[in-house]
């Protein structure tokens, strides 16, 4: 929620930019694109009640429009600008007052004294905002003192700074300060609005804003109570010191000197919510290392070939292990057969024994091929029948059309499959017939059996199968795997940090000491097995093939290599711009905290997030993230010694732990009331700002740069 207490809707003075002119329609269009929820129209020496009403009606509830004017003050011969805002309920009177003052004058030549200003407007429930210091033409301190002495409520005087940094410095010096856009060109307003002050507490009316300027506790508590909160009673340090805390669905800061038990309280809060079923854990800076979080050593890392789109070749490796040589038919069996005269007449007449056996493997492959296609189609038809969503999306008519075509294809495939089956069985039966006749003739006649094969076919088929297996294994091993890259975090100017996981499959010659086997595999059998696979491939058609296979089976740890999964190697490291990078401790902390806060959770419990982090990173990255989480209603409980976090987040709830000679005390309060109340009521209230400045590291600086409109003025 942004506030802009200084805008112009008209070019009133000669020197004003024409781009200050804006009509209600365009105004509404622009404001709706911003987060500005309160806006004061403060034209130079001019107030247009008609335009004010028109804009107010047009914008409706999207933004509160407050009436105002930027006056040319002349005091002791010096010129300065002073904004006067009026209660919107009294806009008509405000307008009439200005009309009276401007009789016979123009915006260009109108001037007014401080005394006249106060006497004219003080009855209209005004807020005075003086141009101050760098915001020129400015009132001097003596002019503001004069204004203070004349107004009925000095809390209604604010000083306008030129930007948030100046406003923060004024606030740190005890000045009520704010700044506005002083818009010159409405076309730039959407961008300008991003730099306007944020209202941490939702302000629903001009009156409520005025009460906040008074630091009216009742108002602040009313607003705070609108936030969801829970009251906790914690027994952190024993029954003697029960701690009662309110935890808001917003930022809750737990601060105090070291050794006052803040971390123990945080753990107790964590346990309280865990016991209720709200799972949470405490983020502790430096308790985790980035390399452990991203598991650089791969203790938990596991991946398999299927996930990488590579066949793991488990079946091929199994077959390779169990492969054995096929014997060939001895030549002596041919010699034996032909060296004996065939004397049996019937035997001589049985020509079938002389037939050569036919090739069975070819029709077998043909049959299997068609059968596989047929099965695929059958599976697809089954899928269509069972997939209800497909039927719903495509419709019954189209599905039936598809099924009809598929069924026609299947009929053809089935027919072809049947024919190929017949071919296969014919060959099988024919070969069996020859074998049976040859065996029976030999048995009945007592003559040597005629060999029916040289053994070449079985021998060659066996080798071919080994070649296919080993080729597939080596082909899969040689596949390159794209590195997996995971985003780690932003290291600012250095760039984005990534965690890269390089994967490769040991091919027998891969050497890189950075790479480690995935999971339980060990390096030596990986390398030795892969080397043997290469050798086996080279010897498929040599006499030493089975020696090489035996060597593979006999390597140490061979039993651990059962698939290509067992040959996987990985190397995980961080990168920036594709270059290897080792983040420092500080950078690791930055990334871890950022990731913790980026994670979607119901509650964030954080112990000393500032550890190892620079102020700039906390202010520019962490504080905005905390605010963003708070805005979406998350519980954020932070133990901190850092003012950047404890102050700049403007927490709804500050819990302060104090220790003195009499014991430990817990205070609760907030920056808006600027109070810290002792929970057991034994101690006097403390000043939130004073305690924050005293206790927190960088407290004074944080207040100096804060630039918020209220909280601790």
């Amino acid at each position, binding site marked *: 929620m942004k506030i802009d207490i200084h805008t112009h809707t008209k070019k009133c003075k000669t020197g004003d930019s024409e781009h200050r002119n804006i009509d209600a329609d365009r105004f509404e269009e622009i404001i709706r694109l911003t987060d500005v929820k309160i806006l004061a129209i403060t034209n130079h020496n001019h107030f247009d009640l008609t335009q004010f009403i028109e804009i107010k009606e047009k914008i409706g509830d999207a933004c509160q429009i407050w009436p105002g004017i930027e006056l040319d003050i002349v005091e002791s011969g010096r010129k300065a600008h002073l904004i006067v805002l009026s209660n919107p309920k009294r806009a008509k009177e405000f307008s009439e007052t200005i009309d009276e003052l401007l009789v016979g004058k123009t915006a260009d030549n109108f001037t007014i004294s401080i005394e006249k200003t106060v006497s004219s407007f003080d009855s209209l429930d005004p807020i005075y905002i003086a141009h101050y210091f760098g915001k020129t033409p400015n009132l001097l301190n003596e002019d503001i003192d004069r204004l203070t002495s004349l107004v009925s409520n000095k809390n209604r005087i604010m000083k306008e700074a030129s930007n948030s940094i100046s406003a923060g410095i004024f606030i740190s010096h005890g000045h009520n300060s704010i700044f506005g856009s002083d818009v010159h060109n409405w076309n730039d307003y959407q961008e300008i609005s991003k730099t306007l002050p944020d209202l941490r507490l939702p302000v629903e009316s001009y009156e409520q804003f005025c009460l906040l300027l008074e630091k009216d506790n009742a108002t602040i508590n009313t607003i705070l109570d609108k936030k969801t909160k829970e009251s906790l009673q914690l027994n952190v340090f024993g029954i003697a010191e029960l701690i009662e805390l309110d935890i808001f669905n917003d930022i809750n800061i737990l601060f105090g000197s070291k050794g006052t038990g803040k971390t123990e309280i945080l753990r107790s809060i964590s346990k309280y919510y865990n016991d209720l079923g709200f799972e949470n854990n405490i983020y502790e800076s430096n308790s985790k290392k980035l390399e452990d979080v991203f598991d650089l050593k791969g203790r938990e890392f596991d991946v398999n070939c299927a996930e990488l789109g590579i066949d793991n070749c488990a079946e091929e490796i199994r077959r390779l292990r169990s492969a054995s040589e096929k014997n060939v038919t001895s*030549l002596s069996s*041919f010699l034996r057969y032909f*060296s004996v005269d065939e004397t049996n007449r019937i035997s001589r007449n049985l020509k079938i024994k002389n037939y050569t056996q036919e090739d069975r493997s070819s029709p077998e492959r043909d049959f299997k091929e068609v059968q596989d296609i047929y099965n695929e189609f059958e599976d697809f038809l089954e899928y269509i029948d069972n997939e209800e969503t497909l039927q719903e999306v495509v419709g019954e008519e189209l599905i039936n059309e598809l099924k009809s075509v598929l069924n026609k294809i299947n009929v053809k495939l089935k027919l072809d499959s049947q024919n190929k089956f017949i071919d296969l069985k014919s060959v099988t039966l024919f070969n069996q017939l020859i074998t049976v006749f040859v065996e029976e003739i030999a048995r009945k006649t007592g003559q040597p059996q005629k060999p029916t094969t040289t053994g*070449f*076919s079985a021998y060659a*088929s066996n080798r071919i199968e080994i070649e296919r297996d080993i080729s597939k294994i080596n082909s899969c091993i040689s596949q390159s795997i794209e590195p997996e890259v995971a985003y780690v975090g932003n290291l600012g100017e250095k760039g984005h940090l990534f965690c890269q996981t390089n994967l490769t499959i040991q091919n027998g010659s891969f050497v890189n000491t950075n790479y480690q086997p995935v999971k339980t595999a060990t390096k030596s059998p990986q390398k030795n097995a892969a080397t043997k696979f290469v050798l086996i491939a080279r010897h498929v058609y040599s006499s030493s093939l089975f020696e090489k296979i035996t060597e593979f089976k006999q390597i140490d740890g061979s039993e651990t290599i059962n698939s290509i999964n067992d040959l996987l190697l990985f190397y995980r490291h961080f990168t920036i711009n594709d270059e290897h990078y080792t983040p420092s401790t500080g950078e690791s902390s930055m990334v871890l905290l950022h990731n913790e806060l980026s994670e979607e959770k119901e509650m964030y419990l954080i112990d000393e997030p500032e550890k190892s982090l620079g102020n700039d990173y906390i202010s520019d990255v962490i504080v905005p993230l905390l605010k963003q989480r708070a805005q979406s209603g998350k519980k954020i409980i932070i133990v901190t010694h850092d003012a950047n976090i404890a102050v700049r987040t403007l927490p709804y709830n500050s819990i302060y732990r104090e220790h003195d000679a009499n014991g430990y005390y817990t205070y609760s309060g907030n920056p808006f009331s600027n109070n810290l109340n002792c929970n057991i009521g034994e101690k006097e209230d403390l000043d939130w700002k004073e305690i924050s400045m005293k206790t927190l590291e960088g407290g004074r600086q944080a207040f100096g740069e804060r630039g918020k409109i209220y909280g601790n003025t």
Partner: protein
Amino acid sequence: MVDRLSVKEGKYMETLKASIARTEAKTSLLLHMSDGIALEIELTEDKPIEVKAVFNKIISYLKKGKFNFEVEDDKEDLYLHVCTEYIEQLNAELTSIYSELEDYELLDEQE
């Protein structure tokens, strides 16, 4: 050495010569390959390791192209009968294995 080329199933098939070498010490079947090398299978003694070595070489030749053998011998004796039968069976098996190599795309690519 190459006697003729025959066409079978659309593929050119080379017919190579198989001869019988008879000496006092031993008798062998010689398979004369197209590059001039003769593969020897001894008929008078069982030497399965050597036969397997010849088979390995035959597979390597088959990857380069389809072929079969024809026995050429003018002496009608036991060895001729043995070799004729052996070559007849081997030829059928060569065709079968060539087809298997082809189906599994294991043939050497033609230059």
